[in-house]
């Protein structure tokens, strides 16, 4: 108890040093400061929360799924939920503060999933680690945005990623698949996006990206073509299978080349056509022009089938464009009736017109305007004889009714038309072929063969072979006969005959030979008509001839020959008679007489007569010359005659009058032969009648 005083001193000391608290406090204060600092720092460093909507979750997990930018994690999904109405998945992503300002309204987000395609496997790392969200945005800080629409697939053109953005137009047969590579000399220089059907549905349009480093490979003269699939060709070098790569074989691909120099620099968004193959692409460079085509509308009065889209448009035989669209047009005000007219829109390439100045659609239009005023008209013409296809032709119509290219505001100019030149060649050719087909060629040939057989039989006949010998003896006899005195009287009668001919020529001169000739031609024409009628039975006639020939072969000709033989023999006998032997003497006398007569003639002015005769002949020749001037008329008539004759071919199947006539003719021939036989017998009985004409 007595020890309390020191206690007091201690207490006093404690109080005095109370302000100097333990240094230990530094530790918690430091820790607190550090903790608060770290807390503040982490809070400060915490980026904003963005919301991205996706079509489906695809494995996004809260707290695990990362947001990556250029394959670097820049954020993490904090929460996954749904939008109102549960129609979309909403991922809330905490992004790094440093990156957050760049995530502006142009940002794109998509989920990276493992994907196996023909081009390869992508997103393989996500198989085990799970999906992640890839974001893409440009390098400019734009307007801040916290809610985004996630893309359903990897976008082809990412914001901020440089490259040449193109669009391709493809035909309906294109086999482009999404993400197909664009190859150049086998190296991938770009990629094709998702193909979409263009508005209107006439073609597919697909966006494509040429990587920045290959931008210079493409200019406005570049042509793209499809390399998908493979081609098989068999040539002298053997069979060849050609395909560019396995990827393009399966998934399709596009390659390109710049065939000509001097293309202009291509801007983003330029549309290129995709050609089916290299050849077409190459040709298009030289045929297509770089300027916009000129559209011209043409309304044809005739509704002729055969004009199709793509049909050529020609100016002076040179293709300057093609038919773009076809349609009907009803314009009561313009045409005065409500008939449907053919309205064709032509696509004219200004470059093909060979314009002297700048090649533009406007220049081409003004050129055409000028030509139309000079009579240029559009018309339909046959493009192909066999298919009956039509084309549109622009022709200069001389003395055309004045017309202008009708130009209305914001509408396609309308070009005046002229009468179409569409020949129905197809029908004509078809008719000709049908007729040829209908000809009884086989029957004709059979008849000919039969006829030739008969002729051969006739020629090989022994009697016929004997005929020349007989004729030779007959001629010998005849020469003996001519030497006889009786023949010598002939010149006198000859002189008389000449005088008569002279008179006859003069008469003819008076009677206008030409007119008669014309009349004769008329009769010939009518005769041809008759022939027309008669020719219609030619096949029957041929049969008839055949039968006649057969008949002749079997019967009548043999008989005739026998008769002829008999005749010649009797003639021989006749010549062998005394009278005949006396005949040369008579002939000699006759010639002497003739000689005397000629002397007489010379003395009695026969030469003057001859001269007169020649003069008359000259006048006749003049007349003939005059009549020759009328020849064109004759020629016309002949033409008409031939036309008639040609018409007659059409109907030769009708009737068989000619065959009947032929039959009759044959009978007449037969009768004539009989008469000849009779004559021969008569001569046999009375040889003098040959000379005396009794």
């Amino acid at each position, binding site marked *: 108890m007595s*020890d309390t005083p*020191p206690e007091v001193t201690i207490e006093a000391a404690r109080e005095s040093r109370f302000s100097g608290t*333990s240094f230990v406090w530094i530790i*918690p204060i430091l*820790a*607190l400061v550090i903790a608060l600092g770290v807390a503040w720092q982490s809070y400060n460093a915490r980026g904003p929360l963005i919301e991205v909507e996706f079509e489906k979750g695809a494995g996004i997990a809260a707290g695990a799924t990362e947001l990556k930018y250029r394959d670097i994690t820049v954020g993490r999904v904090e929460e996954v939920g749904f939008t109102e109405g549960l129609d979309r998945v909403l991922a809330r992503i905490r992004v790094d503060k440093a990156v957050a300002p760049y995530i502006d309204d142009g940002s794109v987000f998509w989920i990276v999933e493992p994907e196996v395609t023909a081009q390869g496997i992508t997103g393989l790392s996500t198989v*085990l680690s799970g999906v992640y969200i890839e974001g893409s945005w440009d390098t400019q800080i734009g307007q801040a945005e916290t809610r985004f629409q996630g893309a359903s697939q990897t976008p082809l053109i990412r914001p901020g990623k440089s490259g040449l953005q193109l669009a391709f137009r493809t035909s309906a047969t294109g086999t482009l698949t999404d993400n197909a590579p664009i190859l150049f000399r086998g190296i991938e220089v770009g990629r094709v996006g998702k193909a979409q059907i263009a508005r209107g549905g006439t073609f597919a349009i697909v966006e494509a990206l040429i990587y920045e480093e290959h931008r210079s490979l493409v200019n406005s003269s570049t042509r793209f073509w499809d390399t998908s699939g493979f081609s098989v060709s068999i040539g002298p070098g053997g069979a060849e299978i050609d395909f560019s790569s396995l990827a393009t074989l399966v998934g399709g691909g596009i390659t390109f080349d710049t065939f000509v120099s001097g293309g202009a620099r291509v801007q983003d968004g330029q549309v290129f056509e995709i050609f089916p193959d290299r050849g077409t692409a190459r040709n298009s460079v030289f045929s297509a022009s770089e300027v916009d085509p000129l559209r011209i509308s043409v309304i044809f009065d005739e509704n002729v089938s055969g004009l199709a889209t793509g049909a050529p448009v020609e100016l002076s035989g040179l293709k300057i464009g093609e038919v773009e669209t076809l349609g009907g047009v009803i314009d009561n005000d313009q045409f005065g009736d409500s008939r449907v007219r053919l309205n064709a829109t032509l696509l004219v390439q200004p470059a093909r017109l060979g314009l002297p100045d700048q090649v533009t659609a406007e220049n081409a239009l003004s050129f055409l305007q000028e030509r139309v005023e000079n009579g240029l008209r559009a018309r339909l013409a046959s493009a192909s004889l066999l298919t009956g296809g039509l084309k549109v032709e622009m022709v200069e119509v001389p003395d055309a009714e004045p017309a202008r290219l009708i130009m209305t505001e914001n509408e396609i100019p309308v070009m005046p038309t002229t009468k179409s030149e569409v020949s129905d060649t197809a029908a004509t050719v078809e008719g000709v072929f049908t007729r040829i087909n209908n000809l009884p060629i086989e029957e004709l040939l059979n008849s000919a063969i039969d006829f030739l057989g008969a002729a051969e039989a006739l020629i090989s006949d022994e009697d016929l072979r004997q005929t020349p010998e007989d004729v030779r003896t007959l001629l010998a006899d005849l020469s003996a006969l001519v030497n006889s005195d009786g023949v010598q009287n002939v010149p006198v009668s000859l002189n008389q005959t000449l005088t008569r001919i002279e008179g006859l020529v003069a008469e003819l001169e008076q009677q206008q030979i030409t007119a008669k000739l014309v009349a004769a031609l008329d009769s010939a024409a009518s005769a041809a008509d008759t022939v027309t009628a008669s020719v219609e039975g030619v096949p029957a006639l041929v049969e008839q001839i055949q039968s006649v020939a057969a008949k002749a072969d079997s019967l009548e000709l043999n008989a005739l020959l026998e008769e002829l033989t008999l005749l010649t023999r009797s003639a021989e006998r006749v010549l062998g008679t005394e009278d005949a032997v006396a005949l040369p003497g008579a002939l000699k006398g006759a010639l002497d007489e003739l000689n005397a007569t000629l002397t007489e003639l010379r003395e009695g002015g026969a030469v003057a007569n001859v001269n007169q005769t020649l003069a008359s002949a000259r006048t006749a020749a003049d007349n003939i010359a005059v009549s020759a001037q009328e020849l064109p008329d004759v020629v016309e008539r002949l033409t008409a005659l031939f036309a008639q004759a040609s018409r007659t071919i059409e109907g030769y199947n009708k009737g068989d009058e000619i065959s009947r006539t032929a039959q009759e003719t044959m009978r007449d021939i037969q009768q004539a032969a009989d008469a000849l036989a009779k004559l021969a017998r008569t001569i046999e009985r009375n040889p003098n009648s040959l000379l005396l004409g009794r």
Partner: protein
Amino acid sequence: MVGMGLSGKRQAFITAREAGLVACIRCTKAWPLGTQVCGRCGQALVSRDRLSLQRVWALWFMGFLCYIPANLYPMLKTRTLFVVEESTIIGGAVELAQHGAFGIAAIILFASVVIPLGKFWAIAYLAVSVRSESTVSYHQRLRLYEVVEYIGRWSMIDIFVVAILSSLVQLQALAAINPGPASFFFALSVIFTMLSAQAFDARTIWDIQAKQKEASDHV
């Protein structure tokens, strides 16, 4: 004097200070009050460490500060193939309980949550009780202090488990266990609570008695 103290009331002990002595806390030799340095071991002698409570509170606060992130951050990072799983102390225990391992979950909860929290409570209680009256007897308080001091080192068992697992399960790409940031904070927390407990001058427990006595004497 000693006999007096010993034969006194059961509840009232004579402190060394009352006896005019000061004990060396290192070699336990008692010296007359006023001796500055222990003649045996050279330790500076003070009858009462005036800054004891300050140190206790400072370190206690420090330990508690570390205990917060120790529970918020993951204790273990378990990587199997590509999946990294991070579990906090309580999260891990709950997960184990969900898998049916209630025993292990209970041990983890006891070692990592109940004991540290109990230590915080105990130290805080002791530190508060030396300043004010308490219904708990001095002996019980002293026992509590001894338990706290004893149990403190066992709190490191969590850290041992983490260390052992981390060193054992390192199968390259297949699986790996790494300590999370919580293990660091947990270790710090344990260290600071141990230091806090050590900083407590148990002799001050008795000062309350002296004050009470004084108060009753004055009355």
